[in-house]
């Protein structure tokens, strides 16, 4: 019968968002009903009669439930919107950054065999790399964090998800910085040694390093 009372309360609260306040209220009223139910049994009522009396004593819950629904926050829409804006901007920034990484090879190619080969070309290239890396880092740093808008479990879950996400995000940041660094090292070493036929190995080493970092992150979790 207690299960039946619980089922009845679940039914009453079916349209209410299950946040902490509504769950506590439901639990509180249910405990009240269960107490009453047992008292009625002790008075000699049958199980059926005790259940019916307990349920009948609840009364009109509309006002109470309306009070719970009312406090739905309007600010969440706003937050989602902010996230959307960031996503759009993020796509643009990443595209530009990638384009810059590719184009950074242009100055050395175009300026080879000219008198700018040894100073202006590398300088331009590093400037492009710097801008691209800066863009990527700025992009991830401006990502809006999910702020909890109310007490609901869904929100708590989202927040928790965000926190585990923070790990992944840190990894991504390190990874993008790593690759920028690898490109710089590759080009530096190549210009320095002119061993272009072998310096590409640096990229393989980069892949290995990224793998190791990833493994470290996984282990830490």
């Amino acid at each position, binding site marked *: 019968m207690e299960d039946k009372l619980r089922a009845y309360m679940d039914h009453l609260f079916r349209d209410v968002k299950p946040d902490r306040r509504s769950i*506590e*209220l439901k*639990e*509180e*009223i249910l*405990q*009240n*009903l*269960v*107490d*009453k139910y047992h*008292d009625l049994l002790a008075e000699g009522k049958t199980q059926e009669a005790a259940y019916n009396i307990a349920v009948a*004593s*609840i*009364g*009109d*819950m*509309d*006002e*109470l439930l309306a*009070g719970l629904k009312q406090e739905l926050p309007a600010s969440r829409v706003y937050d989602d919107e902010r996230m959307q804006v960031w996503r759009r901007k993020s796509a643009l920034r990443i595209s530009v950054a990638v384009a810059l990484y590719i184009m950074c090879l242009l100055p050395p190619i175009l300026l080879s065999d000219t008198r700018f080969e040894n100073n202006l070309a590398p300088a331009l290239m590093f400037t492009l790399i710097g801008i691209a890396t800066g863009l990527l880092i700025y992009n991830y740093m401006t990502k809006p964090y999910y702020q909890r808008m109310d007490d609901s479990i869904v929100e708590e879950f989202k927040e928790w998800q965000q926190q585990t996400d923070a790990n992944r995000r840190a990894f991504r940041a390190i990874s993008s910085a790593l690759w920028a660094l690898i490109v710089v090292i590759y080009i530096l070493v190549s210009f320095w040694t002119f061993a272009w036929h072998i310096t590409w190995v640096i990229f393989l080493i980069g892949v290995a390093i990224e793998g190791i970092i990833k493994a470290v992150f996984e282990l830490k979790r």
Partner: protein
Amino acid sequence: MSIASDLIRGHTDTIILAHLMREDSYGYKINKDIQLKTDNKYELKEATLYTAFRRLEGAGYICSYWGNENTGARRRYYTISLEGRQAYFKMKEEWDEAKELIDILIQSGEEKEEQNGR
């Protein structure tokens, strides 16, 4: 009885505060005390009771905490705040005043004469 319960319902807040003046309590116990005191003539609906709790909490007159019973039942206890005590005295004073006025106003002429003649 229905007029009486309507009248009483208008004072749910005062009744709850009055119970909490004595000791911290939870919903069912307050309702049961009401039943006992009124000799089963009056009982609050759960909906009325918990709406009143939320209202009083919102006004800062009462605070709640979860008790830890050993029996496994988890009850939310309410305790009255200083503001709640002040509100209680004010409400009671208002009721006493209203009661006096209503007594005067609803007396019919006959009763008055009766009283005068006594």
